[in-house]
């Protein structure tokens, strides 16, 4: 293996919640001092579990500014260190599932799939460590005044794995395929993208039907942003999934479905590290689907694989225990971004059409207890909005406004509704309300569901039925294609937000859910099937549209804050905690946290356990 001694800037995760660090955090957190009712006779227990603070005293939490690290946040600071880069070697990555496919325009991917795709494809844009969008395969991108036309210049001298040169026409030719693709069509619609033209050898012009200041975010997502060879894709779409062709750092070598997919080094890769060294460092990388969480972790611990991903707090907890208590030689690259767990109420279905019920049930949601049931104590932060405390979009005002656990407060709201002779569910005054609480049948989610169920049942006001449907059915019920996208769900587990620009998630979530509602609001045609709670607020929708038409951060911040405040007031959705994810590796697998965008800035890291593998290397 070739060795290059160099200075690198690394974003190193200190893996914050070692037991000792937990003690320090608990001591510094302020909760022990400020919550005397919770500390009696339990001080030693609380010291062992510092994040198990009661959620009853939100006002006494220390103020956190947007962008700061918060107590309990697993993210770590950027540090400078001397590292020796070494070429060669192979990494085998255990994934939580097989990729649904490797065609960015067609296959709806989640985290495992992206890990593989990012090895073979490059994106036009990428997020840097600050969350800003930086050109990647693009060299630059500029909007017109009203953000309806975006002109992008591509990087030159980039070729696909099959030797075909990347030009502006390539991007233009990709567009019809993306428009027709199962994954691409939705993304094209959401981005209001109406045409893509090659206006020069390397210049591409994107035209949107309405202003979109966050359009670069769409180019950092797989369906529109990942670059593929359109001629090869048109010639054999099905075959492309088995033999993908991109411009990325690795070339497909073999694909054995449900067993192993191997990529080898792309010797003609265009990318270099900040010191000008050719990328990638590894000779090859392979991905193996290992669906069972415990088995995947065991595979890492036993050396069957030398990297694994997880999106489960319980697995992170077990991996930490293996490392800290059993001395396993592993590194945990943890990431806690904006993505958060929780659920939603279908506001078109009684009794959830009444805000008193939504508020009452939300007050009964003990986030700390739910997080504990998820195995995330000391790992996940309770969420109050679609942004984590270290996001620039996070708002303290929203955090204070979010309805915290308040049993009697919740009972009061529910009682008011139940005793209302005009109650919306058609039952007689005084009768209990019926709630169907549905989650996929994952043991972790089952545990958290039962925590919520017990709180509801304890009021004596709510009849709870717990249902568990497989993931596909669960989503289908909420999507409700058969009943005009209203869905038949009541209270439904769901995930919200991501580390993308807020517009990416909020635009579709706030548009009118049905044609009738859209027409009533004078927004005919602006229907979104992705408004799963079916909650429509003209003010929130106007805010999200306005935020999409300006690139002034302060203005956008204010608009998104207003939306989050309306969420806190109307509670169409509720939250548990931010999702902690991790990639575990052997200790000699380095570089996951220190990849760069071409400008030399550090990349975002590994959100949702999606690694970027071009700058990964194996230290001897």
């Amino acid at each position, binding site marked *: 293996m070739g060795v290059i001694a160099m200075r690198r800037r690394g974003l190193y995760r200190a893996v914050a919640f070692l037991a000792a660090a937990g003690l320090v955090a608990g001591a510094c957190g302020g909760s022990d001092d400020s919550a005397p009712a919770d500390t009696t006779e339990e001080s030693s227990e609380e010291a062992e579990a510092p994040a198990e603070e*009661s959620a009853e005293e939100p006002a006494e939490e220390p103020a956190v500014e947007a962008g700061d690290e918060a107590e309990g946040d697993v993210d770590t600071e950027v540090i400078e260190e001397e590292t020796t880069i070494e070429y060669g070697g192979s990494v085998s990555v255990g994934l939580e599932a097989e990729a649904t496919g490797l065609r960015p325009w067609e296959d709806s991917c989640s985290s495992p799939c992206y890990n593989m795709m990012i090895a073979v494809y490059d994106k036009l844009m990428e997020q840097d460590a600050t969350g800003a969008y930086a050109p990647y395969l693009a060299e630059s991108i500029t909007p017109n005044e009203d953000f309806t036309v975006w002109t992008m210049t591509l990087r030159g001298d980039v070729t696909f794995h099959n030797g075909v040169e990347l030009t502006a026409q390539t991007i233009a030719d990709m567009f019809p395929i993306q428009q027709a693709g199962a994954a691409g069509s939705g993304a094209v619609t959401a981005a209001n993208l109406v045409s893509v033209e090659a206006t020069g050898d390397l210049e591409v012009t994107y035209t949107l039907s309405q202003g979109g200041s966050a359009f670069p975010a769409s180019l950092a997502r797989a369906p529109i942003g990942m670059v593929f060879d359109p001629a090869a894709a048109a010639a054999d779409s099905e075959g492309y999934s088995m033999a993908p062709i991109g411009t990325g750092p690795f070339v497909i070598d073999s694909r054995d479905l449900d067993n192993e997919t191997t990529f080898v080094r792309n010797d003609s890769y265009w990318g270099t590290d900040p010191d000008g060294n050719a990328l990638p460092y590894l000779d090859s990388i392979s991905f193996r689907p290992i669906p069972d969480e415990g088995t995947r972790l065991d595979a890492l611990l036993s050396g069957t694989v030398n990297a694994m991903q997880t999106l489960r707090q*319980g697995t992170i907890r077990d991996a930490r225990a293996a490392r800290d208590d059993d001395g396993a030689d592993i590194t945990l690259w943890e990431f806690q971004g904006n993505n958060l767990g929780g659920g939603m109420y279908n506001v078109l279905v009684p009794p959830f059409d009444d805000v008193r019920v939504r508020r009452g049930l939300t007050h009964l949601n003990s986030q700390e207890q739910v997080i504990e*049931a998820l195995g995330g104590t000391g790992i996940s932060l309770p969420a109050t909005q679609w942004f984590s405390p270290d996001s620039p979009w996070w708002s303290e005002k929203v955090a204070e406004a979010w309805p915290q*656990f308040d049993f009697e407060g919740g009972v009061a709201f529910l009682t008011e509704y139940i005793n209302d002779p005009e109650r919306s569910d058609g039952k007689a005054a005084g009768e209990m309300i019926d709630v169907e609480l549905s989650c996929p049948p994952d043991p972790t989610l089952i545990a958290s569901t039962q925590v919520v169920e017990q709180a509801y049942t304890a009021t004596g006001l709510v009849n709870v039925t717990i249902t568990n449907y497989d993931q596909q059915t669960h989503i289908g019920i909420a999507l409700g294609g058969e009943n005009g996208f209203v869905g038949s769900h009541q209270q439904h587990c769901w995930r919200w937000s991501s580390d993308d620009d807020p517009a990416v998630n909020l635009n579709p979530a706030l548009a009118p859910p049905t044609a009738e509602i859209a027409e009533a609001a004078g927004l005919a045609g602006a229907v979104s099937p992705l408004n799963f709670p079916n909650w429509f607020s003209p003010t929130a929708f106007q805010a999200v549209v306005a935020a999409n038409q300006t690139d002034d951060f302060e203005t956008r911040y204010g608009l998104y804050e207003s939306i989050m405040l309306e969420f806190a007031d109307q509670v169409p959705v509720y939250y548990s905690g931010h999702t902690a994810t991790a990639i575990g590796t052997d200790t000699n697998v380095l570089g996951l946290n220190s990849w760069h965008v071409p400008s030399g800035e550090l990349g975002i890291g590994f959100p949702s356990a999606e690694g970027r593998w071009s700058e990964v290397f194996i230290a001897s």
Partner: protein
Amino acid sequence: MATTNSSTTPEFPRDRLSNVSSAVAGPTDVAPETTNFLKIVRAMPLRVKMASLWLLLVVFGAIYAKLDTSLFGGALPLQDPNIQTNGFIRETGEFGTGRPIEGMSGSHWLGTDAIARDTFARIVHGSWVSLIVVVVSACCGIMIGGFLGSLVGFVRGRVETIVMATVDVILAFPALVLLLALVSIFEVRNLFVISAVISVLSIPAYTRVARANSLAISSREFVTAARAIGTKPSRILFREIIPNVLPTLLAYTMVAAAYVVVVEGSLSFLGLSVQLPTPTWGNMINQARRDIKINVAQVIWPSLALTVTVLSLNQVGDFFQQRREVRGSNL
């Protein structure tokens, strides 16, 4: 010398019919003294005695738990299986002091699960689901399957062909797959639905067992004699066939029950049995497997309960089947 008029069918006194049957030595009458409970117990090997004791404990625990919740409102000394000991206590306005995935202690004999519920209480309450499913499936199996099998084994002909072909088709289909398909039809899965579905799938096996026995018994002398004296077929079926098929079915019930417990456990493990938060051994195993690295005991306790129960049912079932075979061979 008295002669008999051969042109007329001999009138056999109705009140002597049962005597004729008995005289031909129907299996039920071979050793009436073995119905003595103490003699049966004494005849049991130690392992069968222990298995029986465990089964009695399970039945007692299930009934006790049910009485506790439905009749005594939780006043009996057994913790509420659904109470999270770290949950909010309305009376005090504070959260409980329990902890999840706790080890064994005086207050929680078998520890607590992932959401701080008492594992012992959940195992005891979980036995109720198993018990009900076993009892209902056995009753349905014996009543419907037993009757069908006895009937077709006795009447034979086209009815037998149709019924047994249907049974063969159902038995040829992978049981668990069929079960999953049936269960998935129901949106609300309560104990009644689960018991009914498992019972439906139990019927073919009972039918086959009953039919095999019915065939054998139908060719016995006492049945032939009953036919010969002109006894109505329905009377033969109910008085001669079914009573003699029944002991075999009862012995088979214990073995079938073991299978039913496993099937219900599998459904629970897959999240397709009774709805949460009702405890079952299967859903306890499923929910505890996430934390297996932290506290393996939470997987072991319900697994042990399931395993020992199945083992016990097999032991007891085998014992009674062997007794039945011995008695049969004595004929």
